[in-house]
């Protein structure tokens, strides 16, 4: 972000506009010219389209930053190389491991992982349910002549059926309830951490850390409110419940590109970084001239020299080598040696 802040990024704007239009086209196609579109969801749709625009815009700006662009380019280059099958399989595996199961968070802290996993799983399932519904890609209808058998249609094509009142129906119609429960438990665990952990208390911000949790809890609770209303109150408060739920969800959608939730999209870059490391190791490791030990891939060091130059940092030394050829320990030792010499030349270590 440091040297590339621009008021409006033209490339990103174009890409985001295309993405938003693409969604609209898909809505039209998916809902068979809007005949399957649920008009009650129009506000959600607008929010979703805005979110797509925003995410695409930010993603595009993000990818223009030299280090990000490099990672993107390298990831694509390695993925679509001769080793495609290998890297593809590896990516799928990593996708499950790191994106769906967020295993790396387990190594940061166990309770944190449990909280995050519940929260993320709830969100992802909820997305999987609501996005197709909102965009009109999925809808349910009774089989003509049989008002006990329900059809699920995807893009207008019949994809399966189940009986009303069956277990499957119960689970399907209440999917969002289960999601809300998962999200709420997870979010409450995260809230507890933020209330008690001294380190988090010192560094957290309202908009960066608390607002997302509050939003998630609000969405879940208001969503549960709707279910509660039609299950136990015969829809007496439906209007109220529906409106406040819609408000929270739309706030959430509109805020995705700006706030913490953007990390859901950024996280994918972790897969790229993994491929980059793997390919780099295959190509050869860099050895630190000070410690005489391998410390990083040559590819990485070489790329970093270029990227940092592009960003305005040139660590090239007189003899043509670079300060970046040193490992972190080597750099620290170089600084210490220079300091020692300076002190020694001055004739006193103290004073």
């Amino acid at each position, binding site marked *: 972000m440091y040297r590339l802040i621009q008021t409006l990024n033209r490339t990103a704007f174009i890409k985001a506009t295309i993405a938003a239009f693409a969604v609209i086209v898909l809505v039209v196609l998916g809902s068979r010219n809007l005949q399957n579109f649920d008009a009650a969801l129009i506000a959600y749709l607008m929010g979703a389209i805005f979110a797509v625009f925003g995410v695409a815009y930010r993603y595009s700006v993000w990818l223009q930053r030299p280090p990000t662009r490099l990672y993107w380019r390298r990831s694509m280059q390695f993925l679509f190389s001769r080793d495609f099958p290998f890297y593809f399989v590896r990516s799928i595996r990593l996708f499950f491991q790191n994106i769906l199961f967020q295993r790396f968070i387990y190594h940061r*802290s166990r*309770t944190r992982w449990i909280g995050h996993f519940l929260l993320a799983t709830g969100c992802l399932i909820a997305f999987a349910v609501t996005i197709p519904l909102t965009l009109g890609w999925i809808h349910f209808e009774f089989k003509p002549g049989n008002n006990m058998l329900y059809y699920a249609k995807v893009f207008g094509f019949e994809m399966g059926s189940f009986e009303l009142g069956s277990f499957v129906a119960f689970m399907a119609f209440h999917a969002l309830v289960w999601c809300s429960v998962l999200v709420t438990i997870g979010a409450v665990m995260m809230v507890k951490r933020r209330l*008690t*952990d*001294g380190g988090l208390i010192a560094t957290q911000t309202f908009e960066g850390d608390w607002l997302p949790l509050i939003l998630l809890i609000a969405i879940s609770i208001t969503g549960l409110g709707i279910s509660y209303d039609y299950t136990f109150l015969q829809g007496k408060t439906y209007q109220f419940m529906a409106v406040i739920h819609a408000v929270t969800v739309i706030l959430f959608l509109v805020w995705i590109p700006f706030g913490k939730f953007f990390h859901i999209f950024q996280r994918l870059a972790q897969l790229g970084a993994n491929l980059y490391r793997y390919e780099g190791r295959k190509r050869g490791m860099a050895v630190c001239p000070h410690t005489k030990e391998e410390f990083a891939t040559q590819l990485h060091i070489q790329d970093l020299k270029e990227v940092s130059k592009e960003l305005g940092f040139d660590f090239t030394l007189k003899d043509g080598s670079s300060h970046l050829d040193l490992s972190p320990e080597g750099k620290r030792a170089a600084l210490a040696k220079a300091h020692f010499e300076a002190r020694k030349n001055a004739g006193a*270590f*103290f*004073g």
Partner: protein
Amino acid sequence: MAKLPSSVESIIDQFGPHKGYTPKEGFPGVHEPDKLVKTHCCFCGMQCGIQLKVKDNKVTGFEPWMEFPFNEGRLCPKGVQRYLQNNHRDRLLAPYKRVEGKGFERTSWEEALSKTVSEIQRIQNSHGRDAFAMLSGVSLTNEKSYMVGKFARVALKTANLDYNGRLCMVSAGAGNKKAFGLDRISNTWEDLKHAEVIIIAGTNVSETFPTLTHYIWQARDNGAKLIVIDPRVTPIARTADLHLPVRPGGDSALFGAMLKILVDNDWLDHDFIDNYTSGFQESIDAVKDYDLAWAEEKTGIPAAKIQQAAEWWGKAKTSFLLHARGIEHHSKGVDNVLSCINLVLATGRIGRPYCGYGTITGQGNGQGGREHGHKCDQLPGNRDITNPEHRKYISEVWGIDEKEMPGKGLSAYEIIEAIHRGEIKGLITICFNPLVSLPNNNFVREAFEKLEYYVAIDFFLNETARHADLILPGSLHEEEEGTVTTAEGRVVKINQAVTPPGEARKDSDILIELAQRLGVGDKFAYKKAEDTFNELRVASKGGTADYFGITYEKIEKNMGVFWPCPSEDHPGTPRLWEDKKFKTPDGKAHFNPVPYREPSEVVDMEYPVVMTTGRVVSQYLSGSQTRRIGKLVDQYPEPLLEIHPKLAYQYGIKDGDEVMVKTRRGEAVFPAQLVETIREDTVFIPYHWGGKQSANQLTIGTLDPVSKIPEFKVCACMLVPTGKIASIKIKESAFQSF
């Protein structure tokens, strides 16, 4: 008692040492402690102030105590990690008895105590009272040290009580008593700050007293010249203005030669020498032949450096001389100390601001613990057990008949020798791990295998206690209230943070209960630590280490009181000798002639290399505490053999090779660490480990004739490379940050 009751592996499995770490997210409740307890670090004589975090009667962390004047929050790695003991899986939570073939099994306090008492009585009835001995330690508070002294004399009625200070400060204590009639550093650390010249002899301040470094660095900021005398370039020596790499054992030759240079150049304070000292002429006569060429040969230090050191010392207006175990752990430890004192007295720089001298006391309560009577020859107030008046006074305080008071007993190592000879049959230890900390420990182990009954009081099962018949779980530093006297003579308050966990009891409660069962409960009617302290105050009254005017309240209010403090309205004595009235019988400071002697074992064709031992910053004494703290272990996981590349080359030893070090007493294998920071004729091994890694299998048990300190710091060895390379992990974790 015979060999171990079961395999050493199974004992370690049950009792450790295991490496304890703080959980990743901290101990439960660490973010919301119930209280912060102001107390002190349990390691080393600096006794840095620290606050312990307590949650649900468990120590869960620490917070720096910025207001305590000595360290203002500063700590060494041991201090930072000291909180990891109370909550440790190895913490002894119940009495254990030895069960042959099985190891140790839990037993009840009732059974444990009644068995102990019956064994004491059985052994004393059949072999005499002195056949049951007691060994103690000075990690104990003043109150407990005092109580141990009284317990041994009044309850056990044995003469054979000694303590692990015998391996620590006794040479300095003996030297100071001879020269000054009193055993305490002359000045507080504050007086280091403006000393023009500082000599530190045989003390690796940077690793053994890290928090003292700040005072030395401040002095250097103010222009002080630092002279370090050490066979190794320790971190404190690295940037020193002058480093004198003395060959182990050559210290008194160096100081003798320096004294001669002072005399030859008349860098003397004649007024001070004439009016306030005695024995000057005899002392300089003793060194009249110690010229630079001779000194260079004896010490291995280039003559020019000796000359330079003497010149700086001689011409300085203010100065401070500090020494520690490096010159004291010798069969001539007292001589070395006296030769240092001669330099101080010759220049008259004592008893004034920024003019000081002293030993840096090593153990947590090395100072207070050596004053109040758990030495074999001593009674509270640093009184002499052979002096009829002293005996009479203390007998009165204790309410016993003076005739009942045992006489002078054997010193620590002599007790072990007496056990080995079969003269001592029973032993009780508290806070002492002789199997690791005494020299020639194969001999020590044989002795322990001969005991008929051995009971150990401790909070962790140390290596020696594995040989015990009975283990009584005592208390940690943070589990009992009391006072400690720091290396600068400041009496400070140890506050109880938590109660002993499980069935563990306070050390003092164990001693009191044993005393009751031995029929002298009325002499031990203490309800709390302060009662003991108040009795100690009276017992020390009129002695050289006079605590009479010190109260708990006064300590807390002033963050410590410096003894001597003879009355309640007395402010304490931070700087001694300002009145130049010394505590010797003639009131003068005494020069003592120090003719040079060789160490008890010198190198020869068979054992051609000088071996010395010492410490590392992450470990404390025999390691029974610090080898259980994970990060401290990881910092330096096992002993390495420091060897100069030139010496290594002669044997074809490369960095990381395994080397067997052999002496006349034993052999042990260590990975070699090739460093140019040690003399070319000397190898160094840190001693904090037990078993096969114990450096004290190799050291020599020769004692100083006066102080009875063993000669840990010099012996002769041979080096035999095993041809194997030590495993990489040792090297990595020992050298690198983690």
